[in-house]
C-alpha cells in the first residue's frame, strides 16, 4: 500500500528516465518535469492519505479478515482460536433464539423504515409549501434525530411506554387496554418502531433539500395542462426527488438493521434479560452482543456479524439494481 509505482499507460519508460532529467532537459523539456511533478503528486497524495490508509488497514481491512477467520473457529478470548469449519454457522441456523432475533430485526426494519420515510416525506411536503416559519419547524422536527440514539432518550422512552405510564393511560382513554408496551414481548418492538419514527427529521431534511431543487416551471406547465395535485406529485415530484428517496431508503434501511443501543436499553432490566421480556426486543445485534461479550463466544459472534454483513450487502445490491427502474438522474448529474 505504501509504494506508489502503479504505472499509467502514458508514463512508459518511467524507470529509464530515472535520474536523467537534466540531460534530457534541452531535447524534451516538459517530459521529465511532468514526470517529476507526477511523482511529487503521488508522494503528496499518499502522505496526506496516510492516516486514512493506516486506519483502513489497521481498523477496517485487517479486522474484516480476522473476523472472517474467527467465524470458522471456536474462540473464547482466552484460548487460541480453534478451527471448526462451518460449525458456527450450523449452530446459528439451528438456534431458535437466533432465528427469533432475525425475525424481530426484519420486522423492525420492514415496519419502521417505511413508516419513518413516509412521515419524513409527508412532513417535508408540508414544510416545502411555505417559507414563513419553515426554518423553525425544520429545526424543531430535526432535533429528535440528534438525541434519538442516546441512552437518555432510550430511558425516557422506556418510561413513557411502561405499564400505567402516559402512553398506556392515553390508550385507555380510547378504550384500548393492552398494558405497557415495554413489558409485553409482542409490543415492545413497536415502542422501538415509534422511537425510530420519532426521528423522522434527518431524512426529512434531506427530502426538503431535494424538493427545493425541483424546477417550479415543471409544476406550472403541469398546472396549465390541468394535472391535479396527486398527478403532479406522482409524475413530477416523485421522479424528481427519486435520487434523494433512494439515498434515504438505502441509509435508513442499513441503519435499521444495526439498531442496538435503544433495543438494549429499552429492553434491558426486564426479567434479567438483556433485550426485552421473553426476548421481545432481541434484535440481531443484541444477540450478537450477548453471544460475543456475555457468553465469550467470539467465533460464533463473528459468524453472526458476517451474516449481518451479507444481509446488508444483499439489500444494498438489490436497491442499487432496482434504482435503474425508478431512480431518475438528471443528465449531467452522475
Amino acid at each position, binding site marked *: 500500500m505504501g509504494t*506508489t509505482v*502503479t504505472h*499509467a499507460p502514458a508514463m512508459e519508460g518511467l524507470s529509464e528516465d530515472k535520474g536523467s532529467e537534466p540531460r534530457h532537459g534541452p531535447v524534451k523539456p516538459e517530459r521529465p518535469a511532468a514526470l517529476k511533478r507526477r511523482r511529487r*503528486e*503521488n508522494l*503528496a*497524495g499518499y502522505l*496526506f*492519505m496516510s*492516516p*486514512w*490508509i493506516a*486506519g483502513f488497514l489497521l*481498523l*477496517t481491512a*485487517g*479486522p*474484516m479478515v*480476522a*473476523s472472517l477467520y*474467527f467465524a470458522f473457529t471456536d474462540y473464547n478470548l482466552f484460548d487460541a482460536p480453534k478451527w471448526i469449519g462451518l460449525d458456527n454457522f450450523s449452530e446459528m441456523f439451528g438456534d431458535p433464539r437466533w432465528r427469533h432475533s432475525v425475525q424481530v430485526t426484519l420486522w423492525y426494519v420492514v415496519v419502521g423504515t417505511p413508516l419513518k420515510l413516509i412521515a419524513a416525506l409527508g412532513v417535508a411536503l*408540508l*414544510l416545502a*409549501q*411555505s417559507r414563513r416559519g419553515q426554518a423553525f*419547524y425544520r429545526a*424543531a*422536527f*430535526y*432535533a429528535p434525530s*440528534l*438525541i434519538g440514539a*442516546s*441512552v*437518555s*432518550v432510550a*430511558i*425516557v422512552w422506556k*418510561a413513557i411506554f411502561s405499564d400505567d405510564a*402516559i402512553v398506556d393511560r392515553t390508550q385507555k382513554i380510547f378504550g384500548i387496554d393492552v398494558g405497557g408496551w415495554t413489558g409485553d414481548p409482542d409490543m415492545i418492538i413497536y415502542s422501538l418502531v415509534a422511537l425510530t419514527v420519532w426521528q423522522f427529521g*434527518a431524512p426529512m*431534511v434531506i427530502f*426538503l*433539500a*431535494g424538493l427545493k*431543487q425541483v424546477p417550479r416551471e415543471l409544476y406550472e406547465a403541469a398546472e396549465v395542462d390541468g394535472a391535479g395535485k396527486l398527478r403532479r406529485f406522482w409524475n413530477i415530484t416523485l421522479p424528481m426527488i427519486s*435520487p434523494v428517496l433512494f439515498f434515504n431508503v*438505502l441509509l435508513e434501511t*442499513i441503519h435499521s438493521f444495526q439498531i442496538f443501543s435503544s433495543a*438494549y*436499553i429499552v429492553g*434491558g*432490566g426486564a426479567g434479567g434479560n438483556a433485550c426485552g421480556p421473553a426476548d421481545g426486543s432481541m434484535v440481531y445485534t443484541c444477540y450478537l*452482543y450477548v453471544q460475543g*461479550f456475555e457468553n465469550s463466544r467470539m467465533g460464533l*459472534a*463473528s459468524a453472526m456479524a*458476517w451474516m*449481518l*454483513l451479507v444481509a446488508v450487502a444483499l439489500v444494498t445490491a438489490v436497491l442499487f439494481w432496482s434504482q435503474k427502474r425508478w431512480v431518475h438522474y438528471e443528465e449531467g448529474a452522475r
Partner: protein
Amino acid sequence: MSAPATDIKPPAGSGALRHKLPGSVAWHIGSLLILAVILYPVIWVVGGSFKKSGDIVGSLDLFPGDPTIGNYTSLADGIADISISTFFFNSLFLAVGSVIGILVSCSLTAYAFAKIRFTGRNLLFTLMIGTLLLPYHVLLIPQYVLFRNMGMINTYTPLLLGKYLAIEAFFVFLMVQFMRNMPRELDEAARLDGCGHFRIYWSIVLPLSRPALITSAIFTFINSWNDFMGPLIYLNEPDKYTVSLGLKMFVDQEGLANYGGMIAMSLVALLPVLAFFLAFQRYLIDGMATSGLKG
C-alpha cells in the same frame, strides 16, 4: 389562478398572495400538530422530572401539581459513590479528543481526494465509500480482540484511535464534496506561485472549508457524547465511565426506586447536545441536506 397582468408584484409571489391567509393558517395548524406529537413525550418528561418519584408513572398530568427540584438535587450524591461530574468530564474529554482527531485526519484525507491527482485515487475513494455502508458490527469483535491483545481495554485509546485515522468516512465524504466545489483557480494560482500542497491545504483550502469543518465537529461531538456501545465494550471501571454508561449503571442500580432521579439525570445528560443544537442548528441541517443531495 394566475395573477392579473396589472399586478406589480414579481410573478413568483403574486399567485400565492391571494391564497395566503387561509392556506397559511391551515399550514401552521398542521405544523403545530406535528410539533405537539413530537414534543409530547419531551414535555411529559421535563414535567415529570419536577415531580416526586411516586407521582410520575400513573399520571397524565404534564405538569407537576406540587413541583420539586428534589430529583435534581439528589444527583449531587452521584452514582455508586462517583460524582456525576466525573462522568461528564470523561465524556467531554472523549468528545473533544474525537473532534480534534476527526478535523485533522479527515480534512487531510479529503484534501488528497479533492485536490491532489495521484495514482490509485479512484480506487481508494471507492474503498472509502464502501466503508460507509459497512456494518460496524463486523469490526466490533476483531477490533476488541486487537485492542485487548495490545492491553488497551479500560483505556480511552480504542475509542479515540480511529478518530485520528479518519475512520469516519462520512466526514471525509462531506469535506471532499465541499472542497471539490471550491473554485479551481484558487489553488491552481497558488500552485503556479510555487506553493506546496501543505501550504495550499493550510492557508487556502482549510479556511475556506470552515462550514464543512464546523458541521463535522458538531456531529462528531454529539456522536461521541451519545455513543453507548463503544464505552460499554471497552470501559469496565466506573470511574472511567462516560455519561451514557453512568446513566445505564444508574438505571440498573436504582431503577424504579429513584424514578425521578433517573429522569432528571437523563435530561441533564442531554443538555450539552441540546446546547450544541441550539447554537449550531444551521450547520447541522445544511450539512445533512448536502450529504443527501450529492450522494
